[in-house]
């Protein structure tokens, strides 16, 4: 039975953690030390930069009011540009407990850690007493990413995740797929699935933007391990990655931090707008997971062929092994072995069902492998976006 914690904005969380957020790298150590006494109850997130960035501000606001978060401690050095006043207000307006620690005025490292730990311990005790309410499939937001892909990803794990997505979407859930830089070459087949012709044009434009962006940077979204695993080109990797999206109609195009207005399948455009400014769009897989969470993802499906081990702060990650050889090496890290499809031990439909059931189990409180192992990776860097146009969310 799925259950969740009711939030004031109508959403429900499948976890109820305290977010300990550093607002500049200079406050990272203090934040980490505060959370270290109860790593299951307190999760560290943060932004390392000292210079202001609207995207980072928005993502932090979304994460600190994410349905899986019950209380927020903001850890500031004191002189950084991050608008902690606004972030504190946004969290306060949702009714969540929130406190700002300012290291420069709160007595330095030792005193800040001590007072932060006291506050977090009180919050964890308070959150433990909060009741849960029943939660339905149509209240779930599920993201999907792939990382460490190889030639098996597009044949086993990604299409199996796509089947789970189709079933979730049919049940009214919100599903988000992403990385337009890894959809290069899929423009034509993807735009044919758009809910409206205007949205089709937006989908195509988002991938064309990604192709231009990566061409300027001189590299595709393609790592040497992808080639070791049999993938030769970015468009081959893309066609495999695209399988994660399943077969449903594409209901909209969002950017990181946009919350989909209703159930359905959404593409997230993760490539910045305007001229190439802050480097690679997503410098590693966790940047993608963070953006999924910023758009409300309760849980993220992560398909891997080469073998990623990461999890995430705040939202559980379900790891799906595409490659049966890798699965045997990294079985402890994997929630689902889609490699069985290649060995004739399971059908695509069976693995798709297993992934669907795993989503429901983890939304009901079961721990994913990466949660069990204590993985709470987090990364947030600079980007710049313009708001989405009206054609992106057709009614």
């Amino acid at each position, binding site marked *: 039975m799925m259950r969740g914690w009711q939030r004031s904005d109508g959403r429900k969380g499948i976890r109820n953690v305290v977010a300990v957020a550093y607002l500049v790298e200079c406050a990272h150590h203090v934040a980490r030390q505060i959370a270290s006494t109860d790593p299951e109850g307190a999760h560290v997130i943060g932004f390392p930069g000292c210079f202001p960035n609207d995207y980072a501000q928005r993502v932090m606001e979304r994460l600190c009011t994410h349905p899986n978060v019950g209380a927020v401690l903001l850890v500031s050095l004191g002189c950084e540009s991050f608008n902690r006043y606004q972030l504190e207000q946004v969290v306060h307006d949702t009714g969540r407990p929130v406190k700002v620690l300012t290291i420069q005025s709160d007595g330095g490292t030792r005193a800040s850690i001590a007072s932060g730990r006291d506050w977090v311990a009180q919050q964890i005790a308070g959150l433990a007493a909060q009741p849960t309410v029943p939660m339905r499939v149509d209240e779930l937001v599920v993201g999907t990413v792939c990382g460490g892909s190889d*030639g098996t990803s597009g044949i086993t794990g990604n299409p199996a995740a796509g089947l789970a997505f189709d079933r979730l979407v049919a049940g009214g859930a919100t599903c988000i797929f992403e990385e337009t830089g890894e959809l290069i*070459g899929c423009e034509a087949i993807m735009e044919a699935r758009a809910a409206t012709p205007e949205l089709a044009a937006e989908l195509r434009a988002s991938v064309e933007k990604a192709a231009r962006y*990566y*061409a300027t940077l001189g590299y595709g979204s393609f790592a040497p391990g992808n080639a070791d695993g049999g993938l*030769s*080109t*970015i*468009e081959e990797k893309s*066609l495999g990655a695209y399988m994660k999206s399943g077969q449903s109609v594409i209901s909209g195009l969002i950017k990181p931090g946009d919350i989909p207005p209703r159930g359905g399948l959404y593409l997230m455009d993760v490539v910045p707008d305007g001229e190439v400014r802050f480097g690679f769009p997503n410098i590693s897989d966790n940047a993608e997971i963070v953006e999924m969470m910023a758009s409300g993802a309760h849980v993220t499906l992560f398909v891997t062929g080469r073998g990623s081990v990461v999890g995430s702060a705040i939202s559980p990650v379900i790891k799906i092994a595409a490659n049966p050889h890798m699965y045997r090496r990294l079985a402890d890290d994997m929630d689902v072995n889609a490699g069985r499809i*290649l060995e004739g031990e399971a059908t695509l439909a069976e693995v798709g069902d297993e992934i669907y059931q795993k989503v429901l189990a983890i939304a009901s409180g079961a721990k994913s492998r990466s949660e069990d192992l204590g993985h709470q990776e987090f990364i947030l860097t600079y980007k710049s976006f313009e708001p989405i146009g009206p054609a992106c969310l057709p009614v």
Partner: protein
Amino acid sequence: MPRSDTDPRLMLLSPGDSVYVLRDQIAAGETILVQGRKVAISAALGLGHKIARAALRPGDKVLKYGAPIGSASAPIAPGDHVHTHNLKSDYTATHTLEAARANAGEKS
């Protein structure tokens, strides 16, 4: 095309594809059947790698999943390993660590 003409480890993902995908690894020195033709495999191939189904000339589109995954950059014969040495992206070039690995003496 009768299945027995082609090694069962070679998967065809879409009817018009120019490549097969390996569902299992193939060891160096094996001889495999590709559409009735015997092909000697000189270097070990991992699962997920591709073997040519059709002859391709430089510039020809290479199809997998029924869609182009780039263009041949060298002549390709049926049974050839298709990878970064004879297939190039039509978008951005593929970056590998092959040169660095060769220098370090590590096997891929």
